[in-house]
């Protein structure tokens, strides 16, 4: 049985023009120790699907699914209290904007220890020691000093490391990373990805990586889900995605990569959009 099992997930937003489906009937599953990448262009519903799994969507969104199970527990029927116990300890999530994701009013140390206080029985001294251990693990120099820093005193890369430290504080079985490197510059991107992969391997977590960077996918993922317009286009292992893309949309997406371009003009996905729609039907 997979760690995360989602079947026929749909998310609808109530708008003035009627219900708008951001996610339409998506199936996905993630096993322990697996790196799953979800790719797609902006607005393809890849973030919304994961927000639905974490229960973070606003009340205006309607989430329906035949099944949404984490370790065999149905996420849709949990009480809010049970759900809060689960998120942060067994499943965690990190976001695109590391600086905005940290509370500007509190020190880094306080925010790490806050999660530990909520989900573990550690005492104050043990929490502090664990916080230092976590900061060391994510590669922040002089962790004892950094515990007293405020988010605005750290760089974007350091903030993302702190976010990863908070997310992994309670050794989650599932870590969802929503475009974790988009806001960072290239050298830091590489470091953060390597850090995520190292932690994933050490703890045997399932890592769900939401991204639109095919380079990131090729380098990190075991399995890839391609999403377009709220629908799942392809679900395959990473090698066959690049070598034998089955859906027309995936082929369009791959040919839109600058390094695959042949002529002087870059092909765009929109020219293939109609074909991709047919492929899904």
């Amino acid at each position, binding site marked *: 049985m997979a760690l995360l099992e989602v079947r026929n997930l749909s998310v609808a937003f109530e708008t003035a023009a009627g219900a708008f489906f951001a996610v339409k009937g998506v199936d996905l599953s993630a096993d322990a120790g697996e790196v799953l990448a979800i790719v797609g262009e902006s607005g393809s519903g890849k973030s919304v699907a994961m927000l639905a799994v974490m229960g973070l969507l606003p009340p205006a969104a309607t989430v329906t699914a035949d099944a949404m199970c984490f370790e065999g527990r149905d996420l849709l029927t949990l009480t809010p209290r049970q759900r809060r116990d689960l998120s942060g300890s067994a499943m965690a999530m990190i976001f695109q904007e590391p600086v*905005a994701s940290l509370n500007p*009013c509190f020190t880094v140390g306080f925010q790490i220890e806050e999660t530990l206080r909520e989900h573990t029985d550690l005492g104050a001294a043990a929490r502090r020691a664990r916080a230092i251990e976590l900061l060391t693990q994510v590669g922040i120099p002089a962790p004892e000093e950094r515990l007293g820093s405020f988010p605005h005193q750290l760089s974007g890369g350091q903030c993302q490391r702190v976010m990863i430290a908070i997310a992994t504080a309670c050794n989650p079985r599932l870590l969802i990373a929503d475009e974790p490197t988009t806001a960072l510059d290239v050298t830091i991107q590489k470091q953060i990805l390597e850090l995520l992969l190292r932690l994933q391997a050490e703890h045997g977590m399932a890592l769900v990586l939401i991204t639109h960077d095919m380079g990131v996918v090729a380098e990190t993922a075991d399995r890839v889900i391609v999403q377009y317009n709220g629908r799942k286009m392809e679900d395959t292992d990473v090698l066959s995605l690049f070598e034998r893309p089955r859906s027309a949309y995936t082929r369009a997406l791959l040919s839109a990569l600058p390094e695959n371009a042949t002529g002087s003009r870059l092909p765009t996905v929109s020219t293939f959009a109609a074909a991709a729609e047919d492929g899904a039907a």
Partner: protein
Amino acid sequence: MSATDDPHIGTAEQEPLGPPPVAPWRENWRYFTSNRGAVLGLTVLGLMVLTAIFAPLIAPHETATQYRDALLAPPAWTANGRAEFLLGTDALGRDILSRLIYGARYSLAIGLVVVTLALISGILVGLVAGYCGGWVDALIMRVMDIILAFPSLLLALVLVAIIGPGLFNAMLAIAVVLQPHFARLTRGAVMAEKSREYVTSAKVAGAGHLRLMLVTILPNCLGPLIVQATLSFSNAILDAAALGFLGMGAQPPTPEWGTMLAEAREFITSAWWVVTMPGVAILITVLAINLIGDGLRDTLDPKLKRS
């Protein structure tokens, strides 16, 4: 395991350590003290607080002692002034300086109590309105709008008329009148902060509604509230003085500044000092507090910060 000998972490570009962390209050204090007006205001208010605390030691006379031989004695520096009554005496022969010194206690207490009451209730109401949204928000804010629709002094007068005159009732009434300002300010700030990513990541970490409201969001909304609290402090003193002047606040013989003004009303033409001195005391206090409030706003509003 340190960052440098960890083989998994790229060493191509080690992120810089940056300057050593500076406590935010220290940084704010530096900005605040660079504003001369604010420092002046703080000094005056500090002196005022000391005066209030040590009133029995400083005041040359008792506040209620009537010197029958010195009714309406002018200030010491005028022709008929007497040295022992520095700012003169009132119509009952009481030393004005001593009464002003004791009056500082009332004014500061009024400011403090009113602002505390208004701040706490306003923050709670605004927090609930901003966080819950929907009909809760609409209901709360319409009630606030109704309170705001009345001229503040008039509403305070009505409230005091209902619950009876007296210093504490006056303070309650003023707190009710000032409270919607805090509620509005809090609601606006909460609505802006609610959708920020750190709130989402607190949710991911498993924070409940109360924790999100009080620990995650509220501290980020405090900047404008502190400024509003300071400015309301002076408003509270003014309103209390006005209520006292109208006979609805502190009752004689309390040496409250507004009440002193009320008692001196009939001598405006014959003995200027009886009216002027309490008025000047109110003026100086309110001015000092407003200067502090302006300084705080410049300090706490990042958009006005020069850096």
